């Protein structure tokens, strides 16, 4: 899932303070799971902002909505008839949802209520860690299902480097060395001979370095 973290309320106040009527729009997908922008967080933020502006003696109407997703036309369309009532929308979706909202409702200012961080997993409640950088050319089949692109600080394809000590990365003693994990798992799988095979230079043009990307599927395109 896409992992996001809540923006500080002070930053949000600064963004919306000049408006009189705003809509806080949550998203029922990833940001709900990582407890940053779901229905609950929308309710809490709306309540906090209402109290803040009431305390400041400022008129501010705040409505709440949580869409199934903000990265698809069909759910964003649910706001078509109401979005014009608002001076601005504060979207608690990831950066994708915020942008799609801004593209769709051109006349309405849209602000982000969360910081979008990475694609990752819930290791335990309250702990989310990165697992994928969307490099566009998956090599997990060669690395025992552990991604050195997202989990190695240097993104080494043939590691580990000299900074790996007792299974930990030199940048942080709590961070596992991805290549140590790969070797350990290859051992478990009794496929350590695969470690001897050199992974060739990766085609980074499919990664973000190649510019904004798209996936076009003519077989399903309408």
């Amino acid at each position, binding site marked *: 899932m896409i992992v996001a973290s809540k923006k500080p*309320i*002070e930053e949000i106040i600064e963004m919306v303070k000049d408006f009189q009527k705003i809509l806080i729009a949550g998203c029922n997908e990833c940001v709900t799971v990582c407890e940053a922008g779901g229905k*609950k967080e929308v309710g*809490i933020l709306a*309540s*906090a902002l209402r*109290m*803040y502006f009431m305390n400041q*003696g400022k008129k501010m109407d705040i409505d709440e909505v949580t869409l199934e997703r903000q990265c698809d036309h069909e759910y964003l369309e649910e706001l078509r008839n109401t979005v014009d009532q608002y001076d601005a929308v504060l979207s608690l979706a990831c950066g994708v949802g915020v942008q799609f909202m801004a593209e769709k409702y051109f006349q309405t200012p849209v602000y982000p209520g969360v910081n979008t961080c990475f694609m990752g997993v819930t290791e335990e409640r309250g702990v989310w860690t990165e697992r994928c950088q969307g490099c566009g050319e998956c090599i997990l089949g060669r690395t025992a299902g552990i991604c050195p692109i997202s989990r190695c600080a240097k993104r080494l394809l043939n590691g580990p480097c000299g900074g790996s000590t007792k299974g930990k990365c030199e940048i942080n003693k709590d961070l596992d060395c991805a290549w140590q994990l790969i070797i350990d798992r290859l051992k478990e799988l009794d496929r350590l001979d695969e470690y001897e095979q050199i992974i060739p230079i990766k085609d980074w043009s499919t990664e973000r370095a190649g510019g904004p990307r798209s996936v076009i599927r003519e077989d399903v395109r309408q």
Partner: protein
Amino acid sequence: MRLRYPDTIRIIRVPCTGKVDVIHILRAFEKGADGVYVVGCLEGDCRFENGNLRARRRVEQARTILDSIGVGGDRVKMFNLSSGEGPRFAEYAVEMTEKIEEMGPNPIKIAMRKKAA
């Protein structure tokens, strides 16, 4: 036991303090409550294992939010006691009431009255 405790307190019963969410605490302040305290079972004694520990974290979250919006995080507090500790319940009620009286009324309540006037 016939213990006395301040009559300004309104008790809201929940099946477990684990049911209490941040939004419940915030809504109370939005509606004009001067303070909110959550009374749960002793830590380690939760019938549902960690309901009171969850409540403690949510109270902390509410405290942070109330501080950042100028209402005052000290208006919310978590207490723990066993169901046999009636006198302690009354003590906590007095302690919280004194704390809130010291802090004064909820600024949101004052702002709402000003707006209505």
